């Protein structure tokens, strides 16, 4: 296997200081490949991307990106490191007071002193990639959910990052757009030599483009390997997840008291 761009070792994290959502995660993201992080809803996939981006600090353990220990960086170094990362947010997170065009131009204007013509060229190129060149003057409130996601994608790649993180890039897209986005992610990865991390539930699409898949559940990486290896895995958990069976070892419920007991409680008093 090639070098790892991101090395996560024994990471613990807790939102409230009580419930640990990770109990020692080890994760490697190989350079130049597409890695998928999958897992049941609420296991902390989005949180993992935020740890990599330095927006959250682990309570314990190390998060290393391109040889830099992210939680230990000072503000300036962290912001420098982030210039080489792109993140597609689950919600898109476009700046609502700027037009589509200006949203994509925003990171360029903030970091470089390019001429207007140059900015225009770059922005239109990125918009063309996601098929929204014609929507450049629309405000985010005038875009549909799927269109927002595509604009956000164009914005995330505008600074030509080394590491791209996609949080649920496939949800809410029509089949044609979905196909385009899947191809786009793959092509960006191959043509620009990016390293990509995809967080998704979509087994079909994800397995079709990922080189490496990690399944995160109950605070641990429970399985990792190529899509082929996972499909042929004999672990009951992996089989359940990949085939989407309702019954099996994978937890569907948020941790809770016993169901019958909980119902009875209401009748006692």
């Amino acid at each position, binding site marked *: 296997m090639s070098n790892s761009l991101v090395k996560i070792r024994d990471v613990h994290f807790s939102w409230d200081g009580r419930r640990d959502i990770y109990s020692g995660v080890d994760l490697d993201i190989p350079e130049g490949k597409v890695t998928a992080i999958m897992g049941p809803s609420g296991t902390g996939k989005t949180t993992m991307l*935020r740890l990599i981006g330095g927006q959250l600090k682990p309570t314990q353990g190390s998060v290393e990106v391109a040889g830099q220990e992210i939680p230990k960086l000072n503000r300036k170094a962290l912001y*420098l490191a982030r210039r080489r990362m792109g993140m597609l947010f689950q*919600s898109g*997170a*476009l*700046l*609502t007071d700027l037009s589509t065009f200006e949203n994509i131009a*925003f990171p360029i204007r903030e970091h470089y002193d390019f001429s207007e013509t140059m900015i225009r060229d770059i922005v239109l190129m990125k918009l063309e990639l996601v098929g929204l060149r014609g929507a450049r003057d629309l405000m985010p409130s005038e875009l549909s959910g799927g269109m927002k996601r595509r604009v956000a994608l164009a914005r995330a790649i505008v*600074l030509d990052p080394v590491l791209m993180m996609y949080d649920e890039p496939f949800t809410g897209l029509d089949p044609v757009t979905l196909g385009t986005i899947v191809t786009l992610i793959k092509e960006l990865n191959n043509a620009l030599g990016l390293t990509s991390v995809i967080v998704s539930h979509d087994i079909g699409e994800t397995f079709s483009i990922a080189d490496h898949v990690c399944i995160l559940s109950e605070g641990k990486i429970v399985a990792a390997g190529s899509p082929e290896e996972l499909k042929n895995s004999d672990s009951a958990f992996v089989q359940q997840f990949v085939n989407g069976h309702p019954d099996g070892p994978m937890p569907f419920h948020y941790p809770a008291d016993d169901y019958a007991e909980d119902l009875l409680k209401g009748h006692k008093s």
Partner: protein
Amino acid sequence: MSGLINFLQRLGAFIIDGMAGLGRSVTFLISVLMGFKDVLLRPRLLIREIYSVGVLSLLIIFFSAIFVGMVVSLLGYTILVDFGGEESLGLLVALTLVRELAPVLGALLFSGRAGSAVTAEIGLMKATEQLASMEMMAVDPIRRIVAPRFFAGLISLPILTIIFMAVGVYSGYLVGSEWKGVDAGSFWSQIQNKVEFRHDIINGIIKSIVFAFVVTWIAVYQGYHAMPTSEGVSKATTNSVVYSALAILGLDFVLTAMMFAS
């Protein structure tokens, strides 16, 4: 006994929470102040915020000042005329406005008009992950979003207060002289003789600078630390106005005691 322990525990938790909140808001303030250089380097951002925070507050400040000036003048006249002292009307109007009403009412109006808007805007940007996405684009939201709004408020309120003073005194003059027939010459000459530039006007402006600092600090802090939900943003906006009002009135007493009591 257990009641006492319970009480002590609650008191302890309250004090610890309060201290932690104070610490957080001071560290936040420091990081906002560190953004001063970025604001200087990009005056366009600052000017845009001065427009939305300051210029757009002009109208409410202007009309409030007219009415307040008229009321003070009218009430003052009815009292003074009993003692035959109506030529001191100018002095009374000017001193009440400059020392007290312009800084205090200006700050209260400003917090309702601009502070609440700043809180809601920053809070919503947080709730919709716009601030988080900026961070990931390597743009520090404290420097790009919060600092320009903070400094815009700091600059705008003192200027609005000076406008309040001028408009208020003039509308007081109109009521006094045009309606009640107070002699215009004595109205202005009393002001000229008795209102000291350094003592009265400067102190009024100092008050407004202190209020501007506190009101915008509260506004940006509440917005930036709002719970990222619609309820959280609405609570933060309410808090912003309520805390600002309490801080303004409390500080006003302290400042007045320091400046004018002796």
